[in-house]
């Protein structure tokens, strides 16, 4: 097996762009970033197996030229999980928007309090 230059490159780009979007207070950006990184990981999974003809017995030209089916199964699972999480994240985005009227995440108030100073000794 060999590393595929183009594939590796696009994986990097997907991770970079996705991470950049994820490290944000805006939940929609976070969601988009997650989707991009998700694509990146799926391609990484795919790159973990040889590629070739579709692994369908009898239709592919025999096991030799077939793509490795196992990573494909992994990717399928991961795609579906991504879908599920994505739907939930969407619901969260809307819910927080509904409550705060903004798509941005706020800082934890308790930590702000701690920064304000210690709570004396007993």
């Amino acid at each position, binding site marked *: *097996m060999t590393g595929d230059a183009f594939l590796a490159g696009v994986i990097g780009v997907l991770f970079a762009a996705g991470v950049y979007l*994820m490290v944000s207070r805006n*939940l929609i950006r*976070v969601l988009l970033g*997650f989707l991009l*990184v*998700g694509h*990146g*990981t799926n391609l*990484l*999974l795919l*790159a*973990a*197996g040889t590629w070739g003809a579709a692994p369908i017995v009898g239709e592919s030209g025999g096991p030799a030229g077939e793509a490795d089916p*196992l*990573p494909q199964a*992994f990717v399928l*699972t*991961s795609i579906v*999980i991504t879908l*599920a*999480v994505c739907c*939930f*994240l969407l619901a*969260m985005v809307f*819910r*927080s928007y509904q*409550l*705060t009227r903004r798509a941005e*995440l*706020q800082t*934890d*108030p*308790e*930590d702000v*309090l*701690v920064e304000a100073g*210690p*709570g004396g*000794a*007993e």
Partner: protein
Amino acid sequence: MTALLPVSVMLPLLGAGLTLVARRAAGVQRVISVLALAVQLVTECAMLIGIDASGPIVMHLGGWAAPVGIALVADRFAAILMVVSTVVTLGVLVYAISQETAGHPGWFGRGSSAPAFHPAMLIMATGVSNAFVAGDLFNLFVSFEILLTASYVLLTVGGTAERMRAGTSYLVVSLLSSLIFLAAIALVYSATGTVNLADLAGRLADLPRGLVSVLQALLLVAFGIKAAVWPMSAWLPDSYPNAPAPVTAVFAGLLTKVGIYAIIRVQTLLFGGQGFVTLLMWAALATMLVGILGAVAQGDIKRMLSFTLVSHIGYLLFGVAIGGHAGLAATVYYVVHHILVQTALFLAAGLIEQLAGTTSVSRLGGLATRAPLLAVLFFIPAMNLGGVPPLSGFLGKIGLFQAGLAAGGALPAVVVAAGTVTSLLTLYAIVRIWGRAFWRPAPQDGDAEEAPDAAPGAGGDGDTAPAANGDAMPAAVPAVGGDGIAAATPRRAAGGGPAPAPVASRVRLPGGMLAATAAVVLVGVALTAAAGPLYGLAGRAADDLGHPARYVTAVLGQP
């Protein structure tokens, strides 16, 4: 016997399906949930006994022999954790049901017209138990996803602003860790061509050391986030405390421990306890100290507990780093202790919230006289967490220190020293909270001599005065109070400030909640009473972990 393996994982899932079908009938849901978990517990106990007698058991699912198919593997360590986690989950479930029936609509999803609590809880149980028996890296990933997705739902149930904020940061961090884990799996497969743990153990040995270290590092990062190892722990104290009490309790008990389990599993099975030992020690040290300093700085009981949770993850990490029979045995015992004590404490915190409407220390007081039973139920696990003898926290600590000092070398000694400091500061934080919340007269009724329910056992009787619920409950549920952020900010307002009425109110604690908490506390105490056999079991579990060959042969047969 072997068949019990998939059964014990499938039971809660089946239960989840049924609770969905019966999602209109709350009563039926409760019965199903309790039944599913109870039966699961029985099967797991049976497995534990069997495994302890005759070694690891393996189930090749679909009859596809490993490494192609998925193998479920349970050795002593996995079996112990399954039993303990189900005990905890069951206790929390009873607690939650009792709280729910005591009239807490907004708490966990009754407020939503699509009640999600029971299905989510059961699905999480599925994920947790599956994670412990997954003999396959990708299946481990899937189990993580199961329990995480369910935990997202549980954490945000009720959908208040506070929980949405907490839930979002929790969810996003978890997503990142999952993606890292998945990427690590992809790389593991491309390097070895397998994801079966037993198979990996063999194949990794043939690879260049540097490559193995890279894979190991990736996995450690992925699991380290889940286990809340500093500096990847900031997400935990910001998210856990905002969930409903029972949810926080079960999270605190189980989720981080799944991460620790994964770390232990891969360190011992895949990497033979080698690699990054020093790094792990430093991480343990930092996690202990930063965590406990965070706890000292908190003015809210739930948050304080969340920080102690992080800091004591450091103990576990230390045990893993020491490795060897002594280190692993101590770790196994400490994991069990930590699961039980953290859950018990958060359940007690939930009782405080139920009684006083807040867990913010500045607004609490006089609880010891108002609810003596609650006081006991908080004091025992609190002292246990502080490592006060002869409770399990102390015994686990002894085990870790013995292992650490026996290992020799300067760094372990330093970490042991840090461990003692952590232990002392834990006690410091706890004693301060205790003194203020339980002994100091309540801010409202300055002269607490005439505090309500001064009669002993007032907190004890579980009958819920419905009239009291009417006025006390809304206050007792800050989460439902609309904008959680607004509700959260005045938390540490000075005691003199306009604290809510409930501090003086006469809310009686539901018997089920008390019973469940007491049960978890007692199991924790039992760890001391039965320290001999239990530590023996932990020792045998550590022995399994120390000899990965047993695991491998159990899965792949004799080479």
